[in-house]
């Protein structure tokens, strides 16, 4: 009651009553109500579309590229670490291809780091970026010290290489992981912002109210005046209906494209990326194990851990859960690019097992090194190239889906604004003709 009293005090109720006392006043009141309903619908649609556009633009323009960059840094550094070990294994004079692969990977990672530093990474992981930037030179220093000693035939070279690899695996790569995880969190938040469940609900409620109001008003008007078609109101109804449907379908399209981007792009992309770096870790471990000439318990354990994540036990048998069987099974438009990953990895792992057996077998060590440098490297390169292709195609898929989610919303805000403005004009014009009849 107190509310009503307050309203009375403001004079609003009195004003409405006074207006409602005369027929033209009643018509003006109804037309004002309809205009308000249309404006509310416009507000709901406009704010929703603009907010979602911003969120999608954030995924496309900020979090997404930063995530990809962090992922690429991780992959490049893993590649560098494994290549350094393979090059070392070859002896005093390392193969030019491995050395080039190492240098290219380090250069690519450094370039990505500079780019990441230019973007604004979340404050919480600023420290990880610093770790990456400060430890990478330490790492390359250790690798080069290992090379120099290896060239002289000194066993201490192996110690430096182990130290370099430990630094990479225990400090540098986890920092890249933290960075990628933080960006993945941002993508997740942007996805939430791009698809709140209540936005379509709000548009439906305001839209039904506006349409319902328009229809009711026309029915009432037709009964009172016996003029069955009011052009202004009919036009307003059609235009509101079109704007309403357009907004809803745009939101639905945007949402489903984001889901497609996640299922066909993001999930296979992140899984393949992980499979690749884990496989690189296992390959590096295999080289490190050979470099220690039999003292390879630590790298061998690490390789077994990596293999478990990939989906195979230490002897190469598939286990229940693993990333390679999963990505190979995952359907989707790019399934063909992932189809052979598991098979290629198994081929490599069979060779890796033979290398390990040979290395501890009597007199088998030189053979093990030959196998590792020949067949082993070839088999791994095949897996690496295939995973790179799969990664590139799912990255492109992700990017395309995000672009089309963005496209789905493009122009909707403007169209809704124009349409609803026309509707307002239609309502006012439609009622004005009736009001004029009272003069």
């Amino acid at each position, binding site marked *: 009651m107190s509310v009503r009293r307050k309203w009375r005090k403001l004079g609003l109720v009195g004003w409405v009553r006074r207006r409602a006392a005369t027929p033209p006043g009643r018509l003006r009141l109804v037309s004002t109500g309809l205009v308000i309903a249309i404006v509310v619908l416009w507000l709901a649609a406009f704010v929703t579309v603009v907010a979602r556009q911003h969120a999608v633009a954030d995924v496309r323009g900020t979090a997404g590229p930063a995530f990809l960059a962090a992922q690429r840094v991780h992959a490049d550094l893993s590649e560098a670490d494994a290549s350094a070990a393979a090059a070392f294994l070859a*002896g*005093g004079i390392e193969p030019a291809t491995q050395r080039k692969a190492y240098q290219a990977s380090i250069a690519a990672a450094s370039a990505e780091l500079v780019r990441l530093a230019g973007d604004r990474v979340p404050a919480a992981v600023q420290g990880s970026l610093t770790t990456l930037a400060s430890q990478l030179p330490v790492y390359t220093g250790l690798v080069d010290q290992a090379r120099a*000693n*290896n060239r*002289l*035939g000194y*066993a*201490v070279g*192996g*110690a430096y290489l*182990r*130290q370099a690899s430990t630094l990479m695996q225990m400090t540098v790569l986890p920092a890249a*992981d933290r960075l990628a995880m933080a960006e*993945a969190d941002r993508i*997740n938040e942007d*996805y*939430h912002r791009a*698809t709140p*469940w209540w936005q*379509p*609900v709000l548009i*439906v*409620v305001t839209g*039904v109210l506006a*349409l*319902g109001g328009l229809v*009711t008003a026309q029915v009432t008007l037709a009964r009172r005046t016996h003029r069955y078609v009011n052009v202004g109101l009919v036009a307003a109804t059609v235009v509101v209906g079109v704007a309403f449907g357009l907004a*809803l379908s745009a*939101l*639905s399209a945007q*949402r489903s494209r*984001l*889901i497609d981007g*996640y299922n066909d792009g*993001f*999930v296979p992309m*992140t*899984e393949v990326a*992980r499979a690749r770096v*884990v496989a690189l*870790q296992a390959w590096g471990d295999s080289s490190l194990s050979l470099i*220690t*000439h*039999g*003292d*390879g*318990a*630590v790298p061998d354990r*690490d390789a077994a*851990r990596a293999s478990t*994540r990939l989906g195979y036990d230490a002897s190469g048998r598939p286990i229940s*859960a693993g*990333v390679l069987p999963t990505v190979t099974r995952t359907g989707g438009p790019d399934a063909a690019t992932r189809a052979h990953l598991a098979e290629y990895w198994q081929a490599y792992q069979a060779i890796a097992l033979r290398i390990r057996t040979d*290395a*501890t077998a*009597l*007199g*088998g*060590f*030189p053979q093990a090194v030959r196998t590792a440098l020949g067949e082993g490297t070839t088999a791994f390169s095949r897996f690496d190239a295939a995973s790179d292709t799969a990664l590139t195609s799912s990255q492109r898929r992700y990017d395309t889906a995000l672009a089309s989610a963005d496209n789905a919303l493009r122009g909707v805000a403007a169209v809704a604004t124009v349409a609803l403005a026309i509707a307002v004009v239609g309502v006012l014009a439609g009622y004005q003709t009736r009001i004029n009849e009272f003069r």
Partner: protein
Amino acid sequence: MRLVWPLLAVALATAGLLALTARPTVSSPLPSLAAPLPPPSTPKPVVPKPSSNQGSDCSDQTASLRPADVAPMPAAGVAAAPASGPAGYLRTILGRGQLTVAVRPDTPPFAAVDTDTGQFVGFEVELAKQIARALFGTDGHVQFRAVSTADRVRVVQRGEVDMSMATITITCDRLAQVDFSAVYFQASKNVLVLRSSPYRSLADLGGRKVCAATGTTSLQRIADTPTHPIPYQVTNAADCLAALQQGTVEGVVNGDLVLAGMAAQDPETRIAGPKTLDVPTAAAISRDHPELTAFVNGVLARMAADGTWTRLYDANGLDRVFGPAPAPPVPHYRDR
């Protein structure tokens, strides 16, 4: 009352449209399979306690089986003469055509892998070749396998190789697991320090960080030093040299035979400590094959007598590290 129907229609329309269009908020979580691997669990290294009394239960560790006849075995016709000729296990080796030996790949000049050829080279490798030649009468009947410090005794115990010549120090604990040949090198527990440092022995490094590989007698030696150097443990002995070069530690404890290999890799280091010659180094052989131990002892005694030991000492560069060749170690024998 007339208002009820339109309101109902609006409510129904709303509900219908909501059912058609409302969709839950979409998440984009990182798939669990794409999450980083959890870090490996690294067991905390155990710092050994100072040993209370060393060598209490075995009086003469270095006594090995009295040697047998070391004339080359006729490789052919072994199977035809089961009763006479070489004793049991030697026949097995002859039948197999290979003497199998575990060596360390990272302890030049005793044993190492030549980075260019991939072949094992060094003093212990040459000794093993001589033993095989004595057994087979010709060269090329020895197969080497690289072992780690942790595995070098175990591979003999498990019968994976005939013997292990991997800079193994004879200790009471190890004597309970395997047999040892006669001593072929008398080493000293020393400490590798920077050339410029003032340290003269391990005792001078009290309160300083000193490196040794986990599970070695060297680590025990650090724990036993009364001035309490701080042990710094690594997995591979070679990591100690890197730690010394980087200034992480100030000394590396090991037998001088291992330290010699490290000193050869860095001219800025030197071996400090007295030549105590208290580290008897011998080949580990299974306790099941006393005939092989006796045979090896015979070959070692002959090499000491005819100058082969000294020749191999010089040929593998031990003279450059330890000075001119001393007299070969004097063997101690027991009869069973």
